[in-house]
């Protein structure tokens, strides 16, 4: 991140190319709010039940909980959530490791 002029120009160019890439990519995405976009399919291209559709249909039967997000969070994808908790814990530990000082230094 040495901000010499050449590098700055190079950075702007790469940012520009990223912008173009994203705009082109975004153009091919399914239209917003389309109910039959691949992400919402009941049967997906592989012939399996689509995850999103399955969650809507069976969350209540599987966990007796109306809030689907909670069920996905706490049950279907609880490993992600575990990771999330570990991330918070990791952040706490990181701040501890970075900032906490010895008692005698602080006196």
């Amino acid at each position, binding site marked *: 991140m040495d901000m010499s002029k050449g590098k700055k120009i190079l950075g702007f160019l790469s940012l520009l190319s990223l912008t173009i890439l994203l705009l082109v990519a975004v153009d091919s995405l399914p239209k917003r709010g389309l109910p039959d976009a691949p992400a919402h399919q009941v049967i997906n291209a592989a012939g399996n039940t689509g995850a999103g559709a399955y969650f809507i249909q069976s969350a209540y*039967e*599987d*966990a*007796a*909980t*109306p*809030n689907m*997000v*909670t*069920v996905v*969070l*706490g*049950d279907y994808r*609880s*490993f992600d*959530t*575990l990771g*999330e*908790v*570990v991330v*918070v*814990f990791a*952040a*706490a*530990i990181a*701040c*501890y490791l*970075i*900032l*906490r*000082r010895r*008692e005698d230094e*602080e*006196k």
Partner: protein
Amino acid sequence: MTNPSQSLIIKMVSRTLATFIQVFGIYVIIHGHYSPGGGFQGGALLAAGILLIRMTEGREESQPTLATAIATPLASLGAVIFAGLGVVILFFGGNYMDYGAVPVPGMEVPVVRYYGILIVEVGIGLAVMTGLVSIFDDMVRTNRQSGPDMGRGGMS
């Protein structure tokens, strides 16, 4: 933070407000099954309550609310509740985090899952609350001024 307010009114208000925030936080955790919310949001609200007191009264004065020294171990405890639950399930023969595999007498599998999620949410709430408070405490700790309680000891 470094200049805690001395005003009694602010203290009173913040204490009261913090209480309400925390009650709401607990509600959010418990009620996460039915409405938006859950462990993380609730935990963050609980943390917000404590941070409010921290900000109005200063870090040292508000230690009794949640001592820095036990915040990190408590965060770890929250995570252990979560991860430990999964490990416990292993002993019942289920896959990791398969709450339904735990045979609880008189409960349907979905209900067992319901309570499994609840336990998890509580674990998340605890971990998030203490984790955020711990981060905040580490941040506002000044380098040279100090109190006597700086991070002494864990839960040994």
